């Protein structure tokens, strides 16, 4: 049996949407993760509570339920209809961002206290300590779990097919209805998603190598 290459062109439009949602969702997720992760460590109790509630709500409910809620229920509260694609980007960003916030928080907490004390001895303020001492070390710890989260996000983009977005998965469902080549269509979808995951893994590895350049592991006790 020849590989079903002829199916690819009809999936391209869906693939493009999937990529847009994955890219947009990733940017939002990283932003929310940093905001909420730092928020958890804030000295202001109100900021801490807001960050905590956000993390618990989005980690505690199902991503698909969140999509449905934002797409079907929120417009009733707001009184306006939201674009399905926009809802997809926003919800996936919020969802993965909540998981990412825990990654950010635990990475920052695992930077040795001596580093913060050394920064204080150099009379750095809180912002400078974060920017020049803590974050550069914490980011290296965040990268591997963040790579996994980005793969989770890519896989979650398939869920937007259920709120009417014609992403790769939905394009596959349509193509199956047209051609009835069920096994080939779904096999092709799985292969495309798998290759995209491999690409994310490769990029994250490269990023890790690049950021850890010059790290002096010999200096650690």
């Amino acid at each position: 049996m020849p590989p079903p290459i002829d199916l690819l062109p009809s999936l391209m439009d869906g693939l493009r949407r999937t990529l847009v949602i994955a890219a947009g969702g990733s940017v939002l997720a990283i932003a929310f993760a940093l905001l909420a992760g730092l928020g958890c460590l804030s000295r202001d109790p109100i900021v801490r509570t807001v960050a905590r509630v956000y993390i618990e709500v989005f980690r505690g409910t199902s991503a698909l339920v969140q999509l449905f809620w934002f797409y079907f229920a929120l417009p009733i509260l707001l009184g306006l209809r939201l674009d399905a694609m926009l809802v997809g980007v926003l919800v996936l960003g919020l969802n993965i961002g909540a998981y990412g916030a825990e990654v950010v928080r635990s990475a920052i907490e695992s930077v040795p206290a001596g580093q913060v004390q050394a920064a204080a001895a150099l009379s750095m303020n809180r912002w400078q300590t974060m920017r020049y001492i803590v974050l550069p070390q914490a980011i290296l710890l965040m990268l591997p779990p963040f790579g996994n989260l980005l793969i989770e996000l890519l896989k979650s983009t398939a869920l937007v097919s259920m709120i009417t977005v014609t992403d790769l998965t939905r394009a596959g469902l349509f193509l199956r209805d047209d051609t009835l080549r069920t096994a080939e269509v779904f096999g092709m979808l799985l292969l495309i998603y798998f290759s995209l995951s491999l690409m994310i893994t490769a990029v994250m590895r490269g990023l890790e190598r690049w950021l850890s350049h010059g790290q002096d592991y010999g200096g650690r006790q």
Partner: protein
Amino acid sequence: MIWDWEFAISILPEILRGLGVTLLAVFWGMTIALSLGLVWATARRSTNRLVAWPVACFVEFVRSTPLLVQIFFLFYVLPSLGLTLSPLLAGVVALGIHYSCYTSEVYRAGINAVPRGQWEAARALSFSRWESYRYVILPQAIPPIIPALGNYVIAMFKDAPLLSAITVLEILQRAKIIGNETFRYLEPFTVVGVIFLILSLLSGLLLTRLERRLKLVSA
């Protein structure tokens, strides 16, 4: 008033019936995931590369592709092979296989953490490979990973609404049907969200307590 309490309460029994189906799917899905995961984990440690390699590839592949597409694959492709599953059964099998690839990594970590000397001791007692796993390695490997496995129960619970895509009448599907019939979406989806939040938070708390108990036992 946009939010109607009376309506929200009136749909509760129907949604709770859906919750029952969801929990049933999670129970059987997890049963499959826990058993298959152990099979994958031991197969990946096999000295026979013809066993270890394909299993490793399969686990990586399943972990890197969307559960939703896997559900569609099982539900729509199996009938063409002459095996027609009910939507619920197909969904349970999909959940089970998907999560078995995650639990296999947890088992692997647990088994790797058992000191080498234990294997050597089992060998000194001339245990077979099967006996070593059964009586020496697994009894030490599994208790420390129970909390990690528990996290996957919660994760599977949150993924179970995906079964609505193949028309299983689980919690989200029932909320959607109520919405379609009454044109009120706010209450059903909010009720479902709140139920998820309560159950996840509760089970998270239970897990933390269990973890503390296990640490006390092993200490």
